[in-house]
């Protein structure tokens, strides 16, 4: 049996990823405005660790989403709902979003790996140190992290605009990802 929409796990993971990404954007703008860390000024410690926790979790959620999408492939939308070229464009945008999420998470982790701060995932699992602290490398990966994040935001804006377009048309497209 092939479904017209995505399966429930994909739907739940999709929305968890959406909330996480917005939280990461909003909270990162705020945490970068906190005082630089010192012995007495530790405002950044919790938000930065949380940022890393959610970022690493995002990679796992993304893997689950991709697995579910490939295992339970929904049928292509009807031509009356979405033309073939628009469907191809939407697929390309989805692939770009997946790649950018991965790129943002990997570059963020690489940037963090070159600082003097260790990573303890959800304050439970210590990640092994993969590199010595190196300011230049930290800056290099950090800049990539920022550029990929802005590109991701641009693609998300296009993705959301597409969803709103289809909601105004009241076709079956947005219902594919809203099956609780």
């Amino acid at each position, binding site marked *: *049996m*092939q*479904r*017209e*929409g995505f399966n429930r796990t994909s739907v739940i993971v999709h*929305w968890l990823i*959406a*909330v996480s990404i*917005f*939280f990461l*954007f*909003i*909270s990162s703008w*705020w945490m*970068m*405005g*906190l*005082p*630089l*860390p*010192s*012995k*007495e*000024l*530790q*405002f950044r*410690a*919790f*938000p930065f660790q*949380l940022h890393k926790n959610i970022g690493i979790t995002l990679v796992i959620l993304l893997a689950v989403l991709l697995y579910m999408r490939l295992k339970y492939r929904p*049928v292509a939308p*009807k031509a*009356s*709902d979405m033309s073939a070229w628009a469907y191809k464009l939407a697929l390309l945008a989805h692939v770009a979003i997946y790649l950018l999420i991965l790129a943002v998470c990997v570059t963020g982790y690489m940037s963090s790996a070159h600082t003097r701060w260790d990573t303890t995932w959800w304050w439970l699992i210590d990640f092994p140190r993969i590199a010595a602290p190196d*300011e230049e490398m*930290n*800056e290099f990966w*950090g800049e990539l992290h920022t550029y990929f994040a802005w590109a991701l935001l641009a693609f998300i804006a296009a993705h*959301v605009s597409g*969803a*709103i377009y289809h*909601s*105004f048309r*009241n*076709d*079956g497209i*947005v*219902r*594919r990802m*809203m*099956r*609780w």
Partner: protein
Amino acid sequence: MVDGLNKSRLPHWASILGVVAIVLGVFLTALHGAEWMKHSVIATHMPESGVMPAADCPEEELEEEGLTLGQCEFLVDYVAGFVESAPEGFSDSMKTLALIGTLLAFVSVIIGGALVNYTAWSANAAIAVFAGLALIDVLQFSVVVGAGPLIRNFYLWSVLLWLILHAMLLVGAIAGRQFEAAKA
């Protein structure tokens, strides 16, 4: 076998309102979550004396962050100013409202999905959730408006903007429910 999703008989207004509620709900869940974190972080890491230590601004950190020495020192003053400007109980009130707001905003995402797939209960649930979110905005407004000029400048416009958005969603859901009732 293919299950049908193109239910053109489903109300147009619910499709639009549902998606807008979901988009705003996702954004607001993150926004309220971040707000809750802000107050928790500031309260937890403020020195017990209430006096902020001097900023630590090593040159390599300034270069990495793209900050001048003055900006780096201002980051400490900024947090100190925020704490100084907040009246007693402000942080706890905002934290509680942000926590309830996070939960309600997440529920609004689910309700938005129910609106898009229009079910009999979705309009009533949407009215309840949008009213709850608008109430959170009103309560935040009442906390912020008496909290002095710095806090007002920091929060008031975004609180008012969300209040207007939630009021629009609320009247949209009420109008939609009336429209469906008139059709029946």
